[in-house]
């Protein structure tokens, strides 16, 4: 299992379009992806679960990945969040 801590920095948070981008990226990997924040856990490959987290700008989240490509998956998701989903 790989675990990383990331802060959501884009203005609109992990809603709508960024949430869709996150789920779509996660789904390209075989690993299981979980987002943990505010004492809640979401399946990182479920758009409804990710949107329901209500993650706003500056939210700190933990992403865990588990599977044969967990390191690549973790890196790809971290890079996407750090690049602010191309918002600015």
């Amino acid at each position: 299992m790989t675990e990383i801590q990331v802060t959501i920095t884009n203005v609109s948070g992990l809603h709508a379009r960024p949430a869709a981008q996150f789920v779509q990226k996660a789904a390209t990997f075989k690993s299981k992806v979980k987002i943990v924040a505010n004492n809640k856990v979401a399946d990182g490959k479920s758009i409804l679960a990710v949107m329901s987290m209500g993650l706003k700008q500056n939210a700190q989240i933990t992403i865990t990945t588990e599977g044969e490509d967990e390191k690549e998956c973790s890196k790809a998701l971290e890079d996407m969040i750090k690049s602010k989903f191309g918002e600015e």
Partner: protein
Amino acid sequence: MVGVVIVSHSQKVAEGIREMALQMSAPEQKIIAAGGMADGGIGTDAFQVSEAIISANTGDGVAVMVDLGSAVLSTETAFEFLDEDLRAKVQIADAPILEGAISAVVEASLGSALAAVIATAEGARTLNKM
């Protein structure tokens, strides 16, 4: 990839939802708006809906999002116009049209099957915004 059809009484609503959904879709994904009557008036047109379903199908089926009342009736009538193969692969999602469409499009973009796309669209009913 499962296609998505948006059936609204208003052409502008259907087009607007399509425009939003396209922001989250995969490049090759089919999202077709079927809004309003042929003359541009408010209403739903079963013939237009059936044409939209045919255009949206790439072989994996079509999820249909509807707004209110007769949008469901027109869509059911549209199903009657389809050939049997396609009719077996189309389904109406009992979901809010905008939230359902967005959720369905994202689920379909992952390569999920029709049943999963419909389930995700219907799950949007309980999506909290606050």
